Structure formats: C-alpha cells, structure tokens
C-alpha cells in the first residue's frame, strides 16, 4: 500500500517561536488518520504546509509521490481541504458554491452536476435552497466537507472539523468522515480524543513540534494494556484499609486506585471487599484510553 502523504522532518518557525521541529509521518491509502495535539501544537501549520499555503523552513512533503512547492497548487489536485473555520461566499447557495469549486478544480460541468447532487445528499444539504450566509456552523462544516470532496481527492485534509460543534453535529461530521474514508484517505486534526477512538485507524500525537507517538490505534492500545481498577467505598476510611492490603495501590479523594491491575488483581480486590464487609459505591475496571496515553505523551 503506497503512502498518499509523506512528511519528512518538517520545520517551521514564526519569529522566535519554533512551531514545528521536524515532523515526520506518513498516511497510507484509504485510512482515517487522526492528528492529535494541544491547541497551538502546530496542527494547522502542518496542514497549511501540505497544501502549499505556508512556506516550511525545512523538510519535505510529498503528496502521491509529488513534492509540494510553496505557493504552487499542482499537488493540490490530489487534495481536498477543509479549513478550521471555513468561510464561504455568503451570497451563494450551496449548489452555486459547489459549482464554483468544481470549475476551480477544472472539472467538466456534467461531472460537477452529478458530483454536487451526490455530495450534498451525503452531507444532508440537498434540500437546502437558502444562501450560505444563513447557515449554522454545523451546516457550513458539512458544506466544507462536500466542497473538499468534489474533485474526488486522494487525500482529504480536515482541520479540527468537529471542535466547534454540538454533540449531534459532531456525530454527523464523524459519520461523514468515516464514510469518506472508504474511498479516500482522511487526515484530520483534533483535540477531542473520543473522536479519534470512534473513527480513526491510525493516529499521531503532536507535541512540542514533533510527533511524539504514532501508529495503528489497536497496536498502540495493545502496547499499553495498563488497566486500572478503581474502588470508591462509602466510608473514606475503608479506602485506607484497602491500601493496607494492596500496598501498590493509592488513595486519592477517598477513592482507591490499583494501577496496572490484572484480572487476577481485580478478583483479589473484590474478595477482600467482601471479606472486610466494605460497602462500595463504585467498582470500576478502566480500559486504557487515548486520553491517558495522550496525557502521558505530553507529560502531564
């Protein structure tokens, strides 16, 4: 499987601030790739460099085997791009805007028409007759995905497509992206980790201008199978009692946590609770989630 996008040692500095310090990653074909990082970690800078809107200070980007040149738009024929806050011409209707985008991409008018119908259907805007200026944020985001997909790009780049949306709008966008991922590679940035868990095949964590961790989501999960067990007893003093029995655990706010607990550990803990007649409010076995991994990666 060839890589659609390859980034090698990408560097960018804004004045005295080093935004990117050698980002290296690759996105294979037909994959949903989550690009995770804090606000200001350099996600947008990386994305703008990919579409040639920013001039990198070092490193190389190739899209479908062709090198990206700053200010040039040649490699953009492979790419569909959705900016973080997409702005469209408010005086146009969705159909008119799609037609403008299709022509800008150099498509034939019959193809534009067919593709517009198909995509507006996909994003649920096909019955929308109003002009774009009256659209909600979620509608604009959906139109943004539709316009990005019009020329059947090999790579769809979305800059924080869900961060400004309500839960319903977010779910809609994620479903659309997941669908799109069946035909093209989707590279999207976010700081919402549940979004990544929901739809991504691969993930890269960006921290301090570098990729701190990247790879297949399931593999990353396997590597770090540190499940924890949490017990919240009714009486806070009982938490201390458990801590005496299990010295490797810790007590915080009346809640006892046993880290790196195996299934056997969980069973032992349960037995102990029964034997000591401890009344329990909550007993939980925590799966390793991306949030913890992310926190670990960024060192907090």
């Amino acid at each position, binding site marked *: 499987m060839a890589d659609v996008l390859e980034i090698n040692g990408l560097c960018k500095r804004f004045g005295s601030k080093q935004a990117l310090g050698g980002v290296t990653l690759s996105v294979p074909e037909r994959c949903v790739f989550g690009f995770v990082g804090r606000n200001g970690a350099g996600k947008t800078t990386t994305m703008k460099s990919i579409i040639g809107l920013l001039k990198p200070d070092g490193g190389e980007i190739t899209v479908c085997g062709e090198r990206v040149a700053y200010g040039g*738009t040649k490699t*953009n024929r492979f790419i569909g791009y959705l*900016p973080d806050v997409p702005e469209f011409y408010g*005086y146009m209707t969705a159909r008119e805007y799609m037609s403008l985008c299709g022509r*800008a991409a*150099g498509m034939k008018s019959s193809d534009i028409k067919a593709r517009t119908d198909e995509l507006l259907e996909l994003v649920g805007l096909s019955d929308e007759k109003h002009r774009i200026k009256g659209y909600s944020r979620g509608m604009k985001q959906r139109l943004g995905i539709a316009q*990005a997909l019009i020329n059947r790009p090999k790579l769809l780049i979305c800059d924080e497509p869900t961060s400004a949306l309500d839960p319903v709008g977010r779910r809609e966008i994620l479903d659309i992206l997941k669908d799109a991922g069946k035909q093209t590679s989707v590279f999207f940035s976010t700081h919402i980790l549940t979004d990544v868990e929901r739809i991504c095949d691969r993930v890269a964590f960006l921290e301090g201008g570098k990729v701190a961790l990247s790879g297949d989501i399931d593999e990353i999960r396997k590597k770090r199978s540190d499940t924890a067990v949490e017990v919240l007893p009714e009486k806070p003093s009982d938490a201390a009692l458990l801590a005496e029995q299990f010295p490797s655990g810790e007590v915080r706010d009346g809640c006892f946590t046993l880290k790196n607990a195996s299934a056997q550990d969980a069973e032992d803990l349960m037995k102990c609770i029964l034997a000591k007649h401890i009344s329990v409010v909550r007993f939980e076995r925590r799966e390793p989630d991306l949030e913890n991994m992310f926190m670990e990666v960024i060192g907090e």
Partner: protein
Amino acid sequence: MIILPFFKNYFTFMGKELLELRRSGRLLLLTVLFTAFGVMNPAMAKLTPWLLQTMSDSLEASGITVTEYTVTAMESWVQFFKNMPMAMLVALVMFGGIFTSEYSKGTLIPLLAKGLRRNAVSAAKTSIMLLVWSIGYFLSYGITFVYSDYYWDNSAVKNYAFAAFGLWLFGVLLLCCVTFFSSFANSAAQVLLGVGAVYIALHLLGMVGTVSEYLPSYLTQSGELLTGQANPSDYTSAVCVTAVSSLVLLIASVPITSKRRV
C-alpha cells in the same frame, strides 16, 4: 497548454465576481451613482441662471449686480470634469477591499486548495474593477453628452472627448494601484492609504514645472483642453507614462501575490 487553464480559471472567477457585484447590491448602487453624476452635470448648468436670479436680491444687497447670464455646453462639461473625480473616489472606496477582504476572511483558501491559480484571481478582480469603472464612466459621459448637445451645442466645447479619456485613464492607473497595494497590504484601509499616497505624491511632484507634463496627474487638468488653449498632442507623454505605469504595477503585483501568505 499553460494558457488554457489560466483562462478557464479566469472566467470561472469572473463569473463569481459578477455574481458578487450583483448580489451585494454594488452593481445597483454604482449604476444609480454614475447615472446621477451624468444627469447632474447638465442639470446644474441648466439651473445656474435660475439660481443666480433667485439669489440676485441678496447679491445686490451685498453690492454684486447680476447681469444677463448665458449658459453654454461649456458649463455642463466643466461640471462633468468636476464631478467625475468624486465618482472615482466612490469606486476606489468600494473596490479598496476587493482583494484584502478575501484574504482576511479566508474565502479564497478552499478555492486555492483546489488548484485555482492566484494570478487568475488577480486578473479577474482587476478586470472587474476596470470594467465597472469604464462602463460607469461611459454612462456618465454619454448622459452628459446627450443632454449638453440637446440643450446647447457641444461644438462650443473643444476636445471634451480626449479630456474625458485622460481622466478615465487616470482612474485606470489608480485602480491598478489597488491591485498592486493589495498584493501585500492586509486591509482595505492600507490599500486606500497607499493609493492616497500615490495621488498626493503625484500632485506634489506636479508643482515642479518641468516634470508636471509627464505625470499622470496632468491628465486631470482639462481646463485648457476644453477652451482649445491646449491640444491633445500636448498630453502624449502623460498618456504614455500613465499607460506604462499601470501595466508595470499590474506585472509587479504578480510575483508578490503568488508568494503572499493567505
């Protein structure tokens, strides 16, 4: 091979600009404005005697005697050359942000990301400005011409067509300045400041006797042309300088625009 996609991009963006002009109401506003400026010139000339008569009592009280005043087509054309710079100013203010508003809002990004050429965008926007200015200007000119000839006789005025051409060309230069300054400015205010600076610099330079006839601003001095004291041939160098500098401004904006941050 390279030219064809450019023109495709150019006409695509022209279509977008025309739609914007129509839907934003600017087209209507500019039509009304240029028509009004056209009608105003002969109307002011026509009303002058009546105005003077109604004011004659108060004027006499202050010691000025109003004698018989005959209006010719000259008054109408003098009004035209007084009013058109105003129309030019309105057009400049209206088009000052034609580039920068797209940069600051980010509306160009999705289109550029699809491979739309930046130089096609600049060419389309410049064409729209020049087209609107030319059509509007010709509208005002036509109305003034027809009314002046109907009420009086245009043959009493010399070289009005050439003088009108000169002022139009000066407007073209200022609009090319808009394209040029937009290639690096970040707001409409910065663009207009730049255009204003060019205008003032030209007029200051014009005070130096020897160079004034080579300057574009020379084209705005129509008084001697209309009375026949000056001939179009006296303006040859100013016309050439204006045309060449307009072209240079447009060409210079291309490499700057292609490297600017969007």
